[in-house]
């Protein structure tokens, strides 16, 4: 356990001391305030538009974090052999992957906190400046939504570790992660639409089951239903939220177990 905590703490420091991390941190503080400028153009729907924009920015920076901080970290570890520092401590390959993964995810927390605090402050300011156009408690809904939107990225990060466990270099890791990311954005909304009751009525039952199965293969990154519901202050059922969280956590755990199995068999030259 001591090794795991040491590696998590080390990874957190390694990521946080990078210049790009500090730039990202600074930009996340000012982004919500900058987003108020385009938001003010949509006077009647200000609260909803602002929340939509904040969620879009959240997706953008989480994607940027994975591609520009997590991918280079794993590329350095595997391609340049930095992982030998950890593995020759000695440390098992499984523990190394879990430690690095939790470290990478933990490094998101300070960024997310800064973003949430800045966004909530911007919401309060907007509420006091334009009380008729911003619904009360929008800030709280945004906090809740941010936590939920983080979940699929947890799964995507685990997929990144699975890719890195078997891939040979940066080009391969980036290309495969980009492909997964693209599919996760594009495919689930289409599959959801195909499972619509009206469509389901006109197609055989097995098609629906097949589509549902395919839908579970990759995490749904767009989280479109959550963003929509929170922006429009529609109720989110606790059971569906719980299922959504469990689905992504299970996905991440399974991907990491697969990554450990692949990584254990690999020669690190």
């Amino acid at each position: 356990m001591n090794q795991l905590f040491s590696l998590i703490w080390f990874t957190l420091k390694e990521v946080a001391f990078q210049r790009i991390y500090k730039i990202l941190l600074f930009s996340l503080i000012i982004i919500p305030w900058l987003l108020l400028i385009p938001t003010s153009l949509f006077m009647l729907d200000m609260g909803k538009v602002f929340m939509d924009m904040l969620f879009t920015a959240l997706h953008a920076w989480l994607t940027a974090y994975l591609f520009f901080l997590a991918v280079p970290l794993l590329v350095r570890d595997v391609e340049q052999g930095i992982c030998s520092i950890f593995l020759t401590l000695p440390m098992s390959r499984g523990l190394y992957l879990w430690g690095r993964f939790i470290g990478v995810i933990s490094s998101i927390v300070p960024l997310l906190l800064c973003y949430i605090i800045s966004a909530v402050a911007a919401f309060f300011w907007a509420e006091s400046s334009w009380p008729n156009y911003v619904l009360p408690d929008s800030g709280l809904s945004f906090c809740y939504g941010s936590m939920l939107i983080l979940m699929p990225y947890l799964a995507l990060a685990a997929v990144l570790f699975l890719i890195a466990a078997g891939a040979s270099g940066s080009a391969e890791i980036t290309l495969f992660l980009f492909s997964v990311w693209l599919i996760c954005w594009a495919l689930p909304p289409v599959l959801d639409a195909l499972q619509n009751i009206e469509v389901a009525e006109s197609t055989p039952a097995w098609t629906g089951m097949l589509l549902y199965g395919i839908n579970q293969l990759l995490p749904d990154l767009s989280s479109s239903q959550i963003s929509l519901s929170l922006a429009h202050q529609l109720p989110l059922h606790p059971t569906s939220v719980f299922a959504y969280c469990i689905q992504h956590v299970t996905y991440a755990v399974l991907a990491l177990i697969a990554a450990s199995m692949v990584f254990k068999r690999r020669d690190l030259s």
Partner: protein
Amino acid sequence: MPAVLTVTNLSKQYNHNLVVDNISYSLHSGEAVGLLGANGAGKSTMIKCILGLVHPSHGSTSHPDSSPSYLPELPQLPTSLSALALLRFKCSALGLNPALAEKSLMEVNLSTDSHKQPISQYSKGMRQRAALAMTLCGNPKLVCLDEPMSGLDALGRVEVLSLLKEKKEQGAAFLMSSHIVSDMVQLCDRVLIMAHGKICEDVLIQDHSLEEAKALESKLAQWTIK
């Protein structure tokens, strides 16, 4: 004296290319064994098999008392952190006294000012010293060194050799791969000449002299040409 490392019939094959071919030897406490060979002779692959970074195709390695510490040929370190942070991590992960981190950096003569600087600001020689400090921190019983003198100037090589000799006298066993025969002769008790994945000759070092180094170089040339 019990062996700290035993290599038994070790082979490694990549596709149809036999990189390490049926190698066996043992290494005892306080002993230093050198691996000498041309590029591609299989030295680094064998070291990686011992460390568990590469899975052997046949045979086994065992190090019952302790896990080997490793200095890679081109040590890559996380550049956003300082050498001190790196060594503190090792101490924390192994449950060692954190004060050992600073002590190890002092041992390799890495200036105190640089301890807290990010590694990205280090010169090549400083990185090599930091990596060596990381390897020797905690007084490991078995140390695998792959080209430990690369990137060091003449004075640095003398300092590092003296440190390695001191550790050897304290009981550490060394498996060292190097192209600098004179350095190897000064530290090692035995030198294994490797060519085409095999140990061609096991040479006992008698008086650690320059003449011995020259003789070893000519033997290496002879085996490499064959």
